């Protein structure tokens, strides 16, 4: 179960994956 009301683990996972991949993306490239 998610720790946040009304939020599924799947939804949290998609968001976390997306933002983490953005964090690891090299700055200043199109990669």
């Amino acid at each position, binding site marked *: 179960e998610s720790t946040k009301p009304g*939020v599924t683990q799947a939804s949290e996972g998609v*968001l976390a994956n997306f933002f983490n991949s953005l964090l690891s993306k090299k700055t200043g490239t199109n990669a």
Partner: protein
Amino acid sequence: MENNSLCDSLLKWLETFPGREGIAIHHLTDGVAMANVLHQIAPEYFTQFWLTKIKPDVGDNWRLKVSNLRKVQQGIVDYYQEQLNQNIKHFPLPDLSKIGEHGDKMEMGQMLQLLLGCAVNCENKQQYIEAIMNMEERVQKVIMEAIQELMLRESS
């Protein structure tokens, strides 16, 4: 993407910047606050000298508002091209007259979307991305879609 939701969510995102609590569309139509946020995001590019080109206290003069907005928009386009090596020529640039004259929510949403792209790609992106990750999921989802839309258009 539903543009009311986009604008509302990106206004909430802007509120995560220090001193921007309670910010609303009418605070943004003269371009001054957006220019200051850009200076905060990438001070090495949006320098103090660049900021001096943005006229403060333009009041209700929509021509001066649009002039400021044009400088902000051009700065963003140049930043994508020169600093991020990203071409956004396929992204529809917002109609600045509609923002300056009427505070158009749809066009403002697109303008803030461009600003968001600067924040999540800049040298200090970690702090901005982490701030987004602490926002409510509903807003995070809209922001994620806004970034994906920018990225899709960058690569198209």
